[in-house]
């Protein structure tokens, strides 16, 4: 199998993780066994990390609160930002951590049940870390597009049933 085919497998699974190896093989013109082996290999190498559903919790009825916290950090010798990033990402409340260029260093995504819970987490856990210089908290008001997916896509199929 060549690199393009492996990439196509990944793209297909990224857009729909529930595709069966039979379906993937059908779409790419490959043998089912080939696809199964390649997927297993990529799972073992952690190229494929896990399969998860993209959930619209708001639609389900849950009022979750999420926030983006800009964190400025004093980098440490030898380990740079990695050590402090690790201390932050181990908290289960933290759903994402990214090192950024620009006005701040770490973009930390936090999720909680209420504004208070998230604020308290920032105040008591994040800001108090030794190397954290400052934090700025932005609460998410509405999510329009997530992971390349438009949350409420109004573009239904409006085509006629039969056309020349």
């Amino acid at each position: 199998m060549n690199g393009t085919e492996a990439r196509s497998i990944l793209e297909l699974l990224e857009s729909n993780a529930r595709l069966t190896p039979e379906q993937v093989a059908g779409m790419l013109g490959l043998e089912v066994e080939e696809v199964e082996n390649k997927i297993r290999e990529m799972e073992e190498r952690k190229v494929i990390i896990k399969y998860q559903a993209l959930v619209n919790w708001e639609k389900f009825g849950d009022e979750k609160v999420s926030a983006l916290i800009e964190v400025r950090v004093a980098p440490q010798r030898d380990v740079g930002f990695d050590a402090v990033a690790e201390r932050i990402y181990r908290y289960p409340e933290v759903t994402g951590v990214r090192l950024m260029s620009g006005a701040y260093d770490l973009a930390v995504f936090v999720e909680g049940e209420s504004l208070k819970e998230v604020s308290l987490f920032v105040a008591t856990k994040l800001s108090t870390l030794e190397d954290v210089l400052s934090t700025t908290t932005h609460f998410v008001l509405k999510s329009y597009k997530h992971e390349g997916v438009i949350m409420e896509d109004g573009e239904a199929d409006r085509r006629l049933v039969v056309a020349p």
Partner: protein
Amino acid sequence: MKNDDWRGYLNPVVRDMPPSGIRRFFDLANEMAGVISLGVGEPDFVTPWRVREACIWALEKGYTMYTCNQGLLELRNEISFKIENRYGLHYEPKTEILITVGSSEALDLALRAVLTPGDEVIIPEPCYVSYGPTTLFSGGVPVYVATSVKDGFQVTAAQVEKVLSPRSKVLLLCYPNNPTGAVMEEKNLAELAELAVARDLIIISDEIYDNLVYGVTHIPLATLPGLKDRTILINGLSKAYAMTGWRLGYAAGHPAFIEAMTKIHQYTMLCAPITAQMAAIEALRSGGAAVARMVEQYDRRRRLVVRSFNEMGLYCFEPKGAFYAFPDVSATGLDSEEFAETLLREEKVAVVPGGAFGPSGQGFVRCAYAASMEDLSEALKRIGRFVRRASGGRPAGQTAVAER
């Protein structure tokens, strides 16, 4: 007066023209709810956002006026550049390109520009439903050439030669083909080109699906020796850029043809809508990546569909272009009309009976795989169930497959 009396005033060519075979089927399918349609001759994608946004911007800026008859020069430049870049063919934007309201108008203009009453137009079938009627409306006589699945639905010079007469004037081609998905091989094209030159035929080449080819290269008719001047190239943005409803097409060819076509166009249509022209400029400039993404998606669906039909026992030759699969359903014992109608009633999947595209389409159905992967998978599941039932529980047509 009653309807019948008023009909007496009609031009008999128009009055006696049967409605499109697709139309009847459309009415049937449209009455039902929950139908998954593989009967649609257009992309399931909507026009790329950049293109839609460019049109909105044009409207905001007040681009609401006529353009010159031939279409915005800026757009003709883009078209010329694109053809040259892709195929190494040069068309002069000022004299050799005309912007039309869809490629359908371009086809109509081309036929009207060259036909005198009684001239014959050679049309390989199965073919797009409008070729015959458009020829007749222009006073021409359609002469059909049957193509067959054993040639991969490609037309051969030998087949064309058999129907040539002193009145033969135009050879009307559409490759990549609707409804079969066939693409012409170079050898067959070369022989056709030789014949067209030797027998002085004008070629009207509908290349609306030229971007949608899979694992092969599209060869424009005009690139063949001796054909550039005698070929009227017809194309548009509908299929590749998912812009069917914008109605934006074009013709490219010798100044003599384009000038004549422009004459008809200026009196009957004036110009293509400016909003669509502005959108088309953006599509040609920046739409390449979006087209490539769509082609990749079509290719995946194509493989899935072809494999599924063959596994069901319905022989399906590999279409190398467009977004249609054209499986042979005769193994079920049903003709294509019965197959499509029963499939629609029992499993709510719409496909188009091959007979709608000409007698050689009989025994086949056209499945447009321009549908979401979810719909396509579900539709194939239903068709599989239907085929098993129709063949009395046996896997369909094993003998029929083995014979090929």
